[in-house]
């Protein structure tokens, strides 16, 4: 792979905190290696800003391996930038060329208020999980792991849904700021396994109720979420969620009467 260096212009959203408004600032960086990750390019910029006595740009990140779900930049109009199935931290500068201008914003959604610069508050996701994204089993009373055989196909599908990293790119990409891809991934993960069976109905109902409460919008099936999801969570999970929801709603209606 050929390596090259590039000079870039960055337009980055700066905002002091949740209470104040924000605006774009323009920065220049030079000699950026195509081998760097996108966040390493930000490291270079921040080092430069600190040395110049200016405020560095705050952004969320931790693992830098595409798995913790912490990084969250809206790059050139796309959550996590141009590479398919890739988080911001795994995006590498090979994706850009000398002279490019790159626009970087935080996730934008009412349910994800900006904390500072590119950092947003995603605790709404935790509260959606609290509403039912688990199997209610206390520690210490589990039976032998092999006593419930699970067809490989179901196990694999559950795993694919469980791969969601809770980054929120799906919300950021959606014009309605719907959290349905995230939510459906969790509901699918547990609905596909016998362990999740007992609470299947309440889970879907309660998690959706919480999602509405948090101020996420509704899903109009544009598919924007699936296109940007770094873990390639499939939109078929939303269809499965809808089935779960309808079935659960039906069951809870019958219970009421």
């Amino acid at each position, binding site marked *: *792979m050929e390596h090259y260096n590039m000079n870039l212009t960055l337009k980055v959203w700066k905002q002091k*905190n949740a209470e104040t408004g924000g605006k774009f600032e323009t920065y220049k960086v030079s000699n950026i*290696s195509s*081998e760097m*990750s996108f*966040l*390493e390019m930000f*490291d*270079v910029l921040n*080092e430069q800003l*600190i*040395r110049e006595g200016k405020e*560095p740009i*705050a952004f969320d*990140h*931790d*693992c*830098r*391996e*595409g*798995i*913790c*779900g*912490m990084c969250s930049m809206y790059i050139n109009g796309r959550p996590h930038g141009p*590479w398919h199935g890739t988080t911001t931290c*795994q*995006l*590498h500068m090979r994706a850009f060329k000398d002279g490019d201008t790159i626009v970087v914003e935080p996730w934008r959604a009412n349910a994800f208020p900006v*904390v500072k610069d590119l*950092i947003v*508050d*995603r*605790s709404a*996701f*935790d509260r959606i*999980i*609290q*509403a039912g*994204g*688990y*199997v209610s*089993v*206390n*520690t*210490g009373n*589990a*039976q*032998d*792991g092999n006593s419930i*055989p*699970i*067809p*490989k196909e179901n*196990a694999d599908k*559950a*795993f694919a849904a469980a791969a969601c*990293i809770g980054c929120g790119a799906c919300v950021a990409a959606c014009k309605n700021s719907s959290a349905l891809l995230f939510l459906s991934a969790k509901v699918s*993960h547990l609905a596909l*396994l016998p*362990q999740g069976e007992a609470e299947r109905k309440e889970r879907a109902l309660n998690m959706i109720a919480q999602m509405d409460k948090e101020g996420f919008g509704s899903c109009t099936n544009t598919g924007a979420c699936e296109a940007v999801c770094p873990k390639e969570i499939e939109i078929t999970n939303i269809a499965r969620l809808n089935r779960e929801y309808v079935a659960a709603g039906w069951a809870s209606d019958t219970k009421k009467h």
Partner: protein
Amino acid sequence: MLDSKIPAGKLEDKWTDYKGHCKLVNPANKRKLEVIVIGTGLAGASAAAALGEQGYQVKAFCFQDSPRRAHSIAAQGGINAAKNYQNDGDSVFRLFYDTIKGGDYRAREANVHRLAEVSVNIIDQCVAQGVPFAREYGGLLNNRSFGGVQVKRTFYAAGQTGQQLLIGAYQALERQVALGNVKMYNRHEMQDVVMIDGKARGIIARNLINGQLERFFGHAVILASGGYGNVFYLSTNAMGSNVTAAWRAHKKGAHFANPCFTQIHPTCIPVSGDHQSKLTLMSESLRNDGRIWVPKKQNDSRKANEIPEEERDYYLERRYPAFGNLVPRDVASRAAKERCDAGYGVGTTKQAVYLDFKYNLINKYGKAEANKHGIQNPDTETLIRLGKEVVKEEYGNLFDMYEKITGENPYEVPMRIYPAVHYTMGGLWVDYDLMTSVKGLFCLGEANFSDHGANRLGASALMQGLADGYFVIPYTLGNYLADEISVKPIPTTDRAFVETEAKVNERINRLMSIQGTQTVESFHKRLGKIMWDKCGMARNEQGLKEAIQEIRDLRADFWKNVRIPGGIHEMNPELDKASRVADFLELGELMCMDALERNESCGGHFREESQTPDGEALRHDDQYMYVSAWKLNGEHSWELEKEPLNYEVIKPTQRNYK
């Protein structure tokens, strides 16, 4: 004197006897007891969930924006358990034995045996939570092998085992949050332990969103704050992983054990340039199917695929025929360094070796798949195509990650890998109850020193984290708190809270007032370089002595010249980082002192003065059969307490993987 409080009796009965006789807290009293848990990785999340389920009032803390993002999420390869589902001779004893041997006889028998015992419960618990482990076609759980052992006991979920286990623990934790048993504090960083009458009774934490200091009371405090590999700057750890919580506890009297025992992992993507901010692991599980080699010729500049089979040196298979590519990590790392130092390295920097999947892709998976599909005499191309599908299922995410980082396709060309700092076996000293030398202060997971001796076997950290959190602390904490039930919650207006907070405040102000010219990052990089060069894969007396002086100088420079932008009462990631680097600067010195004191080689600690004629680590059991527990006495001054290791069941021998 340190008392490890190992129960009397036969090794295999100790834990059962302990559980049968330890003190208990009744359910009504549990509700009156408050417990602080620092960290929500596998150890902390499992502990907080399990204690919440029992009815304790738990307060849990993490510095990320959600507990689900703890560094444990990044673990790739798997988790060990002595289930013997493969019928290949595994047992609790064998897992115990392998772990002690893998740790080069520097871990406690009683702790490790308990770990092996509860390993089987972990798998059951995780399955019940819905953790989607890999399965066979018959629907049963699948296993893979890891280094240093000859059985298949590793459970996994593709290359995302840590993620799936942590999500399981996180969900259990969030369930307790919903039930009101756990209160979760995200974006909070513990700054100090509050001591009252000689016991840990709370913490001071900094709210990372607004910079405010906050006080929290607990009848006990549990640290599960992870490892300190980032003292080397470059490591496979997450960017935020740090030693701060453990270090502040050390300053409050908790002994730090075996600080120099660092694991350098053999298979990581090599450094590509000065901009490098972290290193990425390629899971050990890849050594199941990848063969490691370098060219037989020095400074061979041909591409990997141009080097014919007979001109490749599969040096691990050559040197260690019994374990081959699956020797333990410390052995594999040193062997890679040896080849590169001798001029056989590959790639532009020559600091790399090949990890090659082609052989097994064709011969193992390709052929098996061809048989399965009834394809007679398949050509190589067909075999490669069939093999690729299997490899993709097993390690797809790792291969993708490799390609994103390096721009090379590892299905086509061998991976280039080199050792990198990965895990710290050392940590806060704990007794059998996982209590530190400070009363009421416990330590779990990678942050403690307890189970891995001088080298950790692959897939054993996840096991230890969950063992500590789900199955050990629920008993041992009760044993401590049973005597605390009459203690009423202490208001955080108590003098101890006020004074501790004032000290924390003073330190932060001091950092912010320096306003020098150099960035935090630049100090961290310099520290990392000293540590890697002089306290890394090979260490010697002279280098360590130099390192101690260099670190002292660097620390003095830091407190004079560091520049931290922004303010105190706002979100300020540079300040967070500065505070962590300041602690690393103190820890680095202690690590070098520990490495200097231990003039033997064992596990990941390789003193050049102590090796066998063929370059293997040479232990000195007559002189160093102890845990080094360091007590802080003052600036640059530590006192060494030795906890002797008594092997009652296993007879230590020179490790041999040949």
